């Protein structure tokens, strides 16, 4: 270790990180996000057991009464569960950020000579991998019990990309909660109290029936962004209208980004 800081050595210190270094930083921090799973089996449960549980429960308990049979219900419910599951998974972005900030991990990262955006981008990249895994789990379980992808590889890829675009922007809401909440539990409470109603008041699990009040029906089919996402996912996986719903979904994603990214940056500056 050096006792002094020679001026010559100090002068050659770079002012910024190079793009290659920045990319390496992001990958290292994404690796960290994934290694965490190894020591926190609960996260694996959230990512695997929960989707499996939802697919089986919904298909066998509600399927026969809603669509007449399990097989007829699967094309309705599998895309819906994919959407709901992705929203839950996006909660982990805000949750992880909150833990990092309250535990001082974020301060450590910010005191290192790494790209300023790497901690956030690394976390998001890790979450993309988790999203992909969790969608795969739903699809595999679905196929095992009789779900059929009617479109093909491109459809599945399109569904994944659309899902990603929506949930990455939705994640900013959880990031905001993560930045403002004093502890991780509050982030979880937000998740459950916001995501459950949002997904149940959509067409993710049911197509609104005759008895549904008109205003609720309008919200469930036309207004709720989760419904737009679900309808587009159905189109991409089993066929049906895609373009209009995908565009509305992307518009919602853009709106969420426009509102919540600035709020997050403001909260971030306040917090730090």
């Amino acid at each position, binding site marked *: 270790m050096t006792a*002094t800081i020679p001026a010559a050595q100090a002068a050659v*210190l770079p002012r910024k990180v190079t793009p290659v270094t920045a990319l390496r930083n992001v990958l290292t921090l994404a690796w960290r996000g994934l290694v*965490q799973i190894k020591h926190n089996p609960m996260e694996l449960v959230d990512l695997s057991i929960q989707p499996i549980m939802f697919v089986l429960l919904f298909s066998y308990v509600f399927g026969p009464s809603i669509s007449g049979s399990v097989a007829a219900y699967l094309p309705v419910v599998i895309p819906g569960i994919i959407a709901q599951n992705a929203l839950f998974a996006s909660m982990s972005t805000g949750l992880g950020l909150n833990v990092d900030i309250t535990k001082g991990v974020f*301060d450590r990262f910010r005191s290192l000579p790494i790209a300023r955006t790497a901690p956030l981008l690394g976390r998001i990249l890790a979450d993309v991998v988790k999203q992909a895994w969790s969608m795969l789990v739903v699809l595999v379980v679905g196929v095992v019990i009789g779900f059929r992808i009617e479109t093909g590889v491109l459809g599945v890829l399109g569904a994944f990309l659309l899902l990603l675009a929506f949930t990455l922007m939705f994640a900013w809401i959880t990031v905001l909660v993560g930045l403002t909440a*004093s502890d991780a539990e509050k982030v979880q409470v937000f998740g459950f109290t916001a995501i459950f109603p949002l997904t149940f008041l959509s067409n993710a699990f049911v197509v609104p029936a005759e008895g549904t009040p008109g205003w609720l029906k309008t919200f469930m089919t036309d207004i709720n962004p989760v419904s737009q996402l679900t309808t587009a996912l159905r189109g991409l996986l089993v066929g049906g209208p895609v373009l209009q719903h995908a565009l509305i979904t992307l518009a919602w994603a853009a709106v969420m980004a426009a509102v919540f990214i600035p709020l997050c940056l403001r909260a971030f500056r306040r917090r730090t």
Partner: protein
Amino acid sequence: MTYAIRAEGLVKRFGETRALDGVSLAVPPGRVLGVLGPNGAGKTTTVRVLATLIRPDAGTAEVGGHDVVREGHRVRRLIGLTGQYAGVDEMLTGTENLMLIGRLLGLSRAGARARAAELLRRFELWDARDRAAKTFSGGMRRRLDLAASLVGHPSILYLDEPTTGLDPRSRNGLWDMVRGLAEDGVTVLLTTQYLEEADQLADEIVVIDHGRVIAEGTSDQLKAQTGGQVLELRPVHEAEVDKAALVVAELLGSAPEVNQGLLTVPVGDSRAMPAVVRALDDAGVAVGELSLRKASLDEVFFALTGNRERTGSPAADEGREEASV
């Protein structure tokens, strides 16, 4: 002379609170500066400014000759930070935590692994290397945190209350490690609420309160600065304590502190002693115990910070609390 750390007139506001109200300090290379102050004095905020985590509202600071605001990235290449809360990822093992930092600092996988192993051995964490940090004791976490701040061989190290909440044994262990770093020539800025800690580790001490530097110097200089000597006396009869206190207060102009029959009062010089004896004799107070001694750093500290009762948990992090309001 060039300083490793130099701050001038740092001001930082959090809403209505002035966390820093013109803090200036300077640390020559290879020295240990103790920043001493009660909770909420601005110690953590000072460290956060010097570590480029927050920008000062006014004032300037240079670390290793680089401005903390304009050349933050260069500053970050030189520093290591150990926070008041152990900044380690609790989900990762000791090895993974240190490898993560090594990789972020540009070491190869093998290089990061070797550096992690070296630090884990040095900080007596080798046996726990494959356990998640959440299973570590408080002392182990602090050691891992310190190890993490050393991965990149920093020449300047910030230790923000490194021993708060540790048991005496862990504290002594950490002190030895800090002494070792200082011997290696690392410049250390250490914040603490413990006078003993500053006395033990620091070459120089800066006392801050309410965001201002209220005294600075070596611990001997600080002791000399506030009168330097303390007169202690105990009347033979408990009943005469109040009377004795009154006599002493009248003679010296400052009221003595009374604790279980023992009167303690700072005195400017040793000539005060015979005067006190005469005055008490005139008043008819029989003195059982009488002594003159050098003031302890505790007494200096309390004299400087106004001897106020402090409440709140010792681990409260003033910077963070104010920031999140």
